[in-house]
């Protein structure tokens, strides 16, 4: 499989913008640690989105300014954050009732791998020397209504992260709705990967060459 041409495709910022465009007004959203956190910066004006952080806050605001950090007000990544007016605090069982009970509309997550059928692996590389750690990842993919994955299309060593079958241990099966990579936006529809949008200068052929899983192009107007 050839390496990505690093000069084409979307930047991480553009990827986050693409995700943000697909978050509807009034949505309750949980953003995973890392790249997903960028999404909050790009919600189009006129839309109000409420952020849930699984450690017990609905109505998470921006990152805390330097000098105003409160070690007892953090997000799931343990970063110092703020709370918006109209926020609510709650304990972990209530917080995961929101997740498991299907009350969160959208969760944006990173991934090691996503499969053709919408399986996701994002908690363990299966490397026996790594300390196992799962956090809330399995709860989120099992419970949240819509799972968006934001990820580089390939690993640093050039391997496709969008695969026929995940080789890493699964976080969840048939759970991903849409993948935002630097090369394309891809929907998982009936266990098939349908390309919804190609990044500038990325052809479908190029995308397929750089993707282990089988892709198809969305039909016009679909």
């Amino acid at each position, binding site marked *: 499989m050839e390496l990505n041409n690093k000069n084409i495709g979307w930047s991480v910022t553009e990827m986050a913008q693409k995700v943000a465009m697909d978050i509807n007004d009034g949505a309750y959203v949980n953003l995973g640690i890392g790249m997903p956190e960028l999404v909050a910066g790009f919600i189009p004006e006129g839309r109000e989105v*409420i952020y849930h952080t699984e450690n017990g806050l*609905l109505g998470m605001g921006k990152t805390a300014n330097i000098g105003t950090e409160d070690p007892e007000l953090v997000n799931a990544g343990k970063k110092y954050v703020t709370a918006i007016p*109209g926020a609510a*605090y709650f304990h972990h069982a209530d917080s995961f009732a929101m997740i498991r*009970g299907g009350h969160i509309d959208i969760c944006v997550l990173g991934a090691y791998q996503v499969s053709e059928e919408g399986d996701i692996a994002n908690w363990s590389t299966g490397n026996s020397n790594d300390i196992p750690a799962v956090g809330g990842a399995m709860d989120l993919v099992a419970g949240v209504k819509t799972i968006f994955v934001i990820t580089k299309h390939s690993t640093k060593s050039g391997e496709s992260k969008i695969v026929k079958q995940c080789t890493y241990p699964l976080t969840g099966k048939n759970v991903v709705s849409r993948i935002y990579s630097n090369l394309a936006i891809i929907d998982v529809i009936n266990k098939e990967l349908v390309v919804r949008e190609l990044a500038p200068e990325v052809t479908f052929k190029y995308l397929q060459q750089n993707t282990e899983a089988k892709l198809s192009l969305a039909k016009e107007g679909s």
Partner: protein
Amino acid sequence: MINKIYKSAKEAVADIFDGATVMISGFGEAGSPIELIHALVDQGAKNLTIVSNNAGSGHVGLAALIENKQVRKIFCSFPRTAISVVFPELYRKGEIELELVPQGTLAERIRAAGAGIPAFFTQTSVNTPLAEGKDKRVFNDKTYVLEHAIEADFSFVKCSASDKYGNLIYNKTARNFGPIMCMAAKTTIVQAKNILDVGEIDPECVITPGIFVKRVVEITNPADESKLVEEKRRYPWN
């Protein structure tokens, strides 16, 4: 932008469909969303399944809904009260179905639905007629019965105040089934005595976070059910 405030109870209950499951908060009259129930009487949806701790008093509120023949079945822990006349009459005639559920099991089955738990084990009701026919399992030498989540299409909940996000606070023991019923329904409809500005409710004291609430109606002076019952009022108003 988010604004869950509806102008009227009528508007808030307009889309309740025949055959819907509707949870109704309250322990007796405390926390009973009487204006929402009356709006549902006016709206007329039939063949409803109701989930409520009691079965109504006199001829108002839930009793009026039952009397108006809109209720096919009720999940209830205590349908028998001194001033409950409507339910007993229809029940004896076989015109309304009852699933009697111990109060704590009822509460937990409602919470389970809201928390994405399809079923759980409890010791409550083991060795009693209410556990007959249910799956049992032994944990640590004790027998438990499997109880299933009760999901609803709509919940009617009364609270003391809400903001436009649907963050709720309650008043004293009127809280009872409100918070868990908010969690368990696809569409939760709340009647609040007061609508507050965003930020007026302390985030540490929010009882129901807005994520569990879809619609809020301000009912500043809710009817006093026990007074209506005492005055032998009927809804629709006689």
